[in-house]
């Protein structure tokens, strides 16, 4: 079982990201479960959503407390202790930030070789025209973890959105995927 926790703020599509990740995993033949945190979702308030992906049926319904993959959609959340709480060993971490990874202060539990930083808000602005980073991050997460094929992510996006919003999100996710893949290749080569 691979467990994912997504932190963001109300309005950034945190819950949608978890749902689409589960839809992509299901389409790829896995079992998946996505659910929001048991918090009140107000615009701007910290929001958490979860996704589990497994080769077998998933019965567990507790919140994800030891994520194997962590997505932080809003860089202003990084100082909150709960964001990195319980991070599993060798967990993948994907951050939305304009800064380079080396410039970002992170707790020691984050392994730099498993870290990717993506200017997801800028990618969303470029491709979608709106500062909603969730879908770009999903593309990046697919590249970072290999948890779901990018094709399944793009299909899930097209299943949820329509018209220019679908096109923009697909372009943002693809661009993010390519970018993180490039980062990973450079890391391996270095």
């Amino acid at each position, binding site marked *: 079982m691979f467990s994912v926790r997504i932190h963001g703020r109300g309005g950034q599509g945190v*819950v949608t990201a*978890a*749902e689409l990740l*589960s*839809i992509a*995993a*299901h*389409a790829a033949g896995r*079992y*998946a*479960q*996505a*659910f*929001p945190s*048991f918090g*009140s979702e107000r615009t701007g308030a910290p929001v958490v959503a979860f996704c589990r992906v497994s080769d077998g049926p*998933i*019965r*567990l*319904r*507790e*919140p994800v*407390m030891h994520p194997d993959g962590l997505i932080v959609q809003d860089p202003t959340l990084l100082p909150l202790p709960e964001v990195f709480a319980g991070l599993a060993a060798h967990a993948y971490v994907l951050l939305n930030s304009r800064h380079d990874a080396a410039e970002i202060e992170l707790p020691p539990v984050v392994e730099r070789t498993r870290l990717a930083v993506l200017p997801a808000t800028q990618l969303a602005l470029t491709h979608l025209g709106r500062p909603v980073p969730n879908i770009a991050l999903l593309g990046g997460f697919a590249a970072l973890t290999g948890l779901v094929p990018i094709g399944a992510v793009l299909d899930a996006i097209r299943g949820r959105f329509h018209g220019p919003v679908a096109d923009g999100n697909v372009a943002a996710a693809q661009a993010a995927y390519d970018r993180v893949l490039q980062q990973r290749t450079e890391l391996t080569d270095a």
Partner: protein
Amino acid sequence: MREQIEGSRAVARAVAACRPGVICAYPISPQTHIVEALSTLVKSGALKGCEFVNVESEFAALSVAIGASAAGARAYTATASQGLLFMAEALYNAAGLGLPIVMTVANRALGAPINIWNDHSDALSQRDSGWIQLYAESNQDAADLHIQAFRLAEELSLPVMVCMDGFVLTHAYEAVDVPAVEQVDRYLPGFTPRQCLDPADPITIGAMVGPEAFTEVRYLAHQTHQRALERIPALGSAFTEIFGRPGMGLLAPYRADAETVVLALGSVLGTLKDTVDDLRGLGHSIGVIGLTTFRPFPAEALRAALAGAKRVVVLDRALAVGVGGVVSIDVAAALAGTDLRQHTVVAGLGGRPITRASLHGTLLRAIEDDLPPLTFLDLDHRLLATAGA
């Protein structure tokens, strides 16, 4: 075909596949997505021949369902929490009048203090209303139970509540094989009301009954509930024949031939099963029984299922203040005269997550005979101290 879908949408489509004639509802979290999805299905024409009635309150929602059902329509509504309390007067009327309404309760805590999150306080508060109460473990269960609820309700002429955990199930995406209309048609016959308000053939429904017959009316209601104890497993088997999936039952045992058995309702059963597997792996004799049917209470089936057990731990998602667990009261009555030791663990109130780690620790204490008769899972003593307790 299995699809990755939100629990609320799966339930809405299952209800639509039963082709209700009238749906009326007032939105309240966490039920909202269900009725929103149904209103969309009605408006788009996907659900034909159904009138979606917008009402001004939950009291009106159930009152409209009562009127619709009495006039011969298959009627559905959904609510949660304070909305269910606001229906209370009409709930007793629906049951007393024998109207086969099906209602989803997206289980949520009761205020005050106001809290929108999941526990079972709402539905359990209506345990004596005369409604049948079924509890879903998963979203597949929730979808399937609605199909079976209509059949059960109409066969017995009694209203049925299908209870599904708010947020934990209603807002969860997981794979569900949403029942198709063709399959549902093979399982669920068209609604033939036992009585029907019709101006062309006038009758009275709901006449006053005095002391000379009121006891008998209540006795007959009790008899109908006793009959439900036989019909629920039978209709569950009939469901399996058509759909190829487990149908409803009174109890849902899992590795229950054990010294210690945990009894619970709803979505926590999944986490419990994982915990029990862990404990079994450590050599402990422990199992789980899911209480699918809470009303009528399957006392005899429970006694039989626990015949080989030494102790039962009731995981109660609601508190009878001044008493303890709500479900525990019925379990104690059912087990009176047996040697079973009973523990009540009040857990997951107001949406507090029930974790595998906490269950593990508490169940180990039960196994070691170190668990008091009544405990509150993960009680925060530091927080209590700040309140001066």
